[in-house]
């Protein structure tokens, strides 16, 4: 294995977890063994035939502070948590024996000149050690942590929701800036919650996000910026709500840079929720707009989901991509969960006659986010009063995350649904 640093009967197999500094090869990094003991490894010197390394035992908490640049390199070396550290002299030639020596921690200054106080690691740790093109480099990291010791614990569910919201915001920006991609999960590291991602061609997205969250940090009015840059406001609102409700702080770091791209506290997030909620009720995000013209096909898919039948392209006469659109449309109406499982309303659709299906769907569409936003925008009270021909105009003006061409394409679904469903709509 390429990430094995050292193996000995005393410490077991030490593998490299995160690299903080490189020079020709990793020179300052963390390692751990099979039972979770952690060490920071510091390059002490090199001679013609060997490298000398200091193997410093470190607690998980201190390592986290080190990685978050709350503890400097000198403090890790000088103020160690255990009485001894290990000096390893590792020959370049594997056939030669490694020298292993316990050293009193408080004598480290007598051995080498230490870095000055206040020198921190240069960037977020790199978890990718190999140069193989098959491996994906982590370009960004998300850090989520409680905003105070008294805040409730961060559960996986909470973290997942925050990451999901951020991913939606990021992906909608990637759609706007051609060439950008969504966030590809690469791995995780020790810390409160640290997730590594790869995002290609992200410069424009990063600068837009950085500017947006700078405004948020300064409590400025963000609506003009959102409108000017076509930011996905519902996704942003969702992200801020989830950060505020979980009393957590959210950081997005770029691994090529030492600074945070985004840094937001739950208090900042809370400040914007009311304003953004009001704004968002009149607009829709691309993920809330269906693109599935044929309602009969939609019912067929819901029925198959209800029966646990596979969705086969040839049986449905749809491509894989079209099936995805129909599944998405079903979720916008509440027939399925966002992750694809059938809801009770979906079960009712599956078991009903066509006429009942249309009646149920009419109400579902009226109260879907997209349907209701269209009604509000049109200043009418229900779908029977909607003018189907305004669908394109509605999407172009209220769904900034859709390009004009996509808005026109999705408007055909709204028009068709409006025409089919308005006759079947029954009021309360």
């Amino acid at each position, binding site marked *: 294995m390429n990430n094995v640093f050292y193996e000995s009967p005393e410490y077991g197999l030490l593998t490299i977890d995160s690299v903080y*500094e490189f020079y020709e090869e990793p*020179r*300052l990094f963390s390692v751990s063994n099979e039972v979770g003991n952690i060490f920071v490894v510091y390059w002490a010197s090199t001679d*013609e035939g060997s490298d000398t390394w200091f193997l410093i035992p470190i607690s998980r908490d201190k390592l986290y502070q080190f990685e978050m640049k709350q503890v400097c390199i000198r403090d890790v070396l000088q103020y160690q948590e255990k009485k001894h550290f290990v000096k390893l002299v590792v020959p*370049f030639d594997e056939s030669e024996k490694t020298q292993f020596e316990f050293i009193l921690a408080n004598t480290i200054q007598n051995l*080498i000149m*230490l870095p000055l106080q206040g020198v921190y690691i240069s960037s977020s740790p790199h978890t990718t050690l190999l*140069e193989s093109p098959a491996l994906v480099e982590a370009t960004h990291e998300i850090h989520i942590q409680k905003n105070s010791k008294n805040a409730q614990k961060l559960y996986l569910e909470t973290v997942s929701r925050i990451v999901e919201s951020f991913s939606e915001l990021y992906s909608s920006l990637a759609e706007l800036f051609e060439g950008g991609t969504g966030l590809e999960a690469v791995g995780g590291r020790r810390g409160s919650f640290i997730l590594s991602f790869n995002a290609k061609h992200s410069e424009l997205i990063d600068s837009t996000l950085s500017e947006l969250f700078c405004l948020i940090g300064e409590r400025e009015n963000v609506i003009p910026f959102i409108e000017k840059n076509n930011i996905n406001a519902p996704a942003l609102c969702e992200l801020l709500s989830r950060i505020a409700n979980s009393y957590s702080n959210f950081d997005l770091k770029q691994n090529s840079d030492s600074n945070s791209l985004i840094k937001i506290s739950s208090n900042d997030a809370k400040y914007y929720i009311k304003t953004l909620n009001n704004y968002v009720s009149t607009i829709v995000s691309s993920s809330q707009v269906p693109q599935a013209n044929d309602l009969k096909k939609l019912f067929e898919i819901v029925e198959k989901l209800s029966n646990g039948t596979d969705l086969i392209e040839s049986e449905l006469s749809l491509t894989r991509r079209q099936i995805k659109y129909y599944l998405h449309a079903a979720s916008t109406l509440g027939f399925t969960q966002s992750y694809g499982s059938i809801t009770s309303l979906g079960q009712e659709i599956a078991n009903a006659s066509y006429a009942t299906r249309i009646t149920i769907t009419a109400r579902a569409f009226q109260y879907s986010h997209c349907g209701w936003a269209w009604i509000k925008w049109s200043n009418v009270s229900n779908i029977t009063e909607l003018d189907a021909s305004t669908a394109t105009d509605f999407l172009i003006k209220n769904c900034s995350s859709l390009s004009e061409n996509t808005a026109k394409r999705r408007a055909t679904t709204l028009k068709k649904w409006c025409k089919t469903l308005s006759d079947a709509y029954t009021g309360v």
Partner: protein
Amino acid sequence: MSNNSNNSQSEWPLFFPRNIDVPPSDAVNAEGIFFRLTIESPPGTVCFQSTHEEQPTRYKKFLKDPQKLPNVYATSFFDTYEAAKHIKSVFPYIFGDKYIAKGKVIPMIGKMKKTNGPHHYSIWIRNNTLIHASFVVEI
């Protein structure tokens, strides 16, 4: 096939191995402004020795790692002054007495590849390039 067999035998140093691609096939023409930690001011030829020339047995460490082995025959550079300064400050015992020299690298110097970390480059330097003459120590 080794790059060495594609080029004239005198182009690359004789200590480059013949059984692997050195420079590696994905290295590109060296070009740009770079920073090097040097032992002299003004920099001399000795300041631009490859890792192999400085530590002739280091290659043994990478004999089982064909991806990293070619890097041993290269010379390390940074693409920013800050990155060079930072590495000096992190390892003062090793680099504290080194100078930071800045210079323009052109394709005739050799081939380069971004290796290990955000600002670190390996450059495989051809014979007789007088690269040291292009570098000046930054104050």
